[in-house]
């Protein structure tokens, strides 16, 4: 999964119009960032990228870009 695809997934999880998230958004400022969104993200990271995220790692994430890195997403956007 590319970074752009991951951001689109995050848009979907957070019920935002496709293309809203760019990466620099602060998680605490996102309306629908809650435990359900977090669990969905963990499930997708595991099923799409085969990356197992421990929720305690997410405590250290402050922006969407931090999540991108944690989810094992490739930086290139092609």
């Amino acid at each position, binding site marked *: 999964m590319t970074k752009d695809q991951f951001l689109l*997934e995050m848009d979907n999880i957070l019920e935002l119009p496709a293309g809203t998230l760019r990466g620099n958004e602060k998680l605490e400022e996102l309306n629908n960032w809650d435990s359900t969104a977090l669990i969905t993200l963990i*499930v997708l990271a595991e099923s799409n990228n085969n990356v197992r995220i421990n929720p*305690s790692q997410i405590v250290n994430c402050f922006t969407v870009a931090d999540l991108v890195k944690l989810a094992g997403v490739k930086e290139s956007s092609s």
Partner: protein
Amino acid sequence: MLPTAAVEIIRNRSALKKELVKRSNLVPTRIAILGGSTTVEVKNMLELFLLAQGIQPTFYESGYNRYSEDVLYENPELWKFKPEIVFIHTTWQNVLEYPEVLEDTSRVEDRVRGEMTRFQSVWEKIRSELGAVIIQNNFDLPRLRPLGNLEAAQSFGRVNFLLRLNSEVASYARSHSLFHINDILYLSAEVGLNAWLDQNYWYNFHMALSPTATVALARNVAGIIKSIYGKSKKCLVLDLDNTLWGGVIGDDGVQNLLLGRDHAVGEAFLDFQRYVKNLQRRGIILAVCSKNDLENAKEGFSHPDSVLKLEDFSAFKANWNAKPENIQEIAAELNIGLDSIVFVDDNPAERSLVAEQLTEVAVPDVGPDVTVFAEVLERERYFEVEKVVADDLNRSAFYSSNAQRSANQGAFANYGEFLASLDMSAEIGPFCPVYLERITQLINKTNQFNLTARRYTSAEVEAISRDAAYITLYGRLADRFGDNGLVSVLIGRIVDQRVELDTWLMSCRVLKREFELAMFDALAEQCQARGIHKIVGVYIPSKKNGMVVEHYANVGFTSAGKAPEGGDLWHYDVPSNYSPKTRHIYRVTEALTAAR
């Protein structure tokens, strides 16, 4: 229909919910989820599966692991919420006292009784104080087995202990109505124990089930709730070639069909036939819808290994017409709604056509491989039932004898003569415990001959049956072709010396038999016995009950304008010299099965 893959459901939950809430005629319900672990995801997924079944839930959630406290200490919020259904989501982690190693059997049994007493105190309080239907998880098994295989063999082993508890929970379910087991012992095996519980989610969120297992759980609970609301399917419509047997009967001939133990594929078709036969035996109506010449199609069932026989099918359409057209005819012939039908066909083009043109018909994507047909039907929980009642077992016979009645009708000069020839007798009486399950089933699934289309849970029907402020009547009808079973229900509320008809419904399989008049005669008798002289009828139009718009006028009511809550009001003054309206139905006082 929701996607099959759990991950797709989790991923698209919000979008799916947005689409599903747009549907009309959703049935509202109040569900309390009392959790022994975190329940947010359970609630989210259950909401989705219920919406997909046409049920719109409102939820109450207990605090974490407060499933017993909320009930035993009467949490005011829960009491104010007045749940119709309480789902107790507990797992093996909620057992408080596991046996010690080498503990003797009698001490282990004490522990079984202790756990059961603890759970029963919660169930009994829900039953007596909240009057709600209970859905209780039985117990799954832990992944870790410190005693290895001795866990299963020894009475002090946890596996053995949990299975003992499950046996006791099942025993309680058998002896108490309004209590349903959500079988997570089976579900955890279906999902696989390693995928069922994920320590990552347990330690971080106290979720007793992984997210994907939660999807399986929600699907199953929604299946139970669907059955409580009478929304389970009634009829399985089947294609023939490469669906019930391998090969094309018209081309290959009956002798060359793949069916039977001699061939791997033939064995798979045989097993699918056995599965279908089992559905038929427990009351699912079967019908054939096949592109074939009629005689060829019928010949297929003469195959020596065919478990299904022609007489197992209540409707049989084998011709070259479009399948949506044939399915509509089947629904009309059987007097059932299209939303009661599941259609199975190996041909994707036929499935697509039916799904597109008959959106109410369930068309599972069974694919071309017969080995998975039954699994797909199982997964969707189409035919989940609260209980199997005797009338279910006779359902195919009802429909077959209806065909005989229709054939017989042509031999009479007029309809009255035909009715007289049926030699009909009716058993009509107040609701009694033995019939409550069937009465609830009928209330929740009768759409057409249903004056108000009000739905009640089993708990509500039981409460009404005990309430002296109500006149309740059930009706069974038999004739010379067979017993039609319990086919009509009437509920009247007594208010200020008059009876207001809350519910009046009748199964379409006894339409035009004057049975509605027999029910009315019984109601009039009840009114006279109680000194009541006025009956108020209400007709609340729904999408499907147009056939009874003139019902009250036909029985002799006079129009009384609009009801304040919507619908039409009708009045009937019961004369002191009331004479029965039915001419062709003989009323019996003893149980009908004994009378005939």
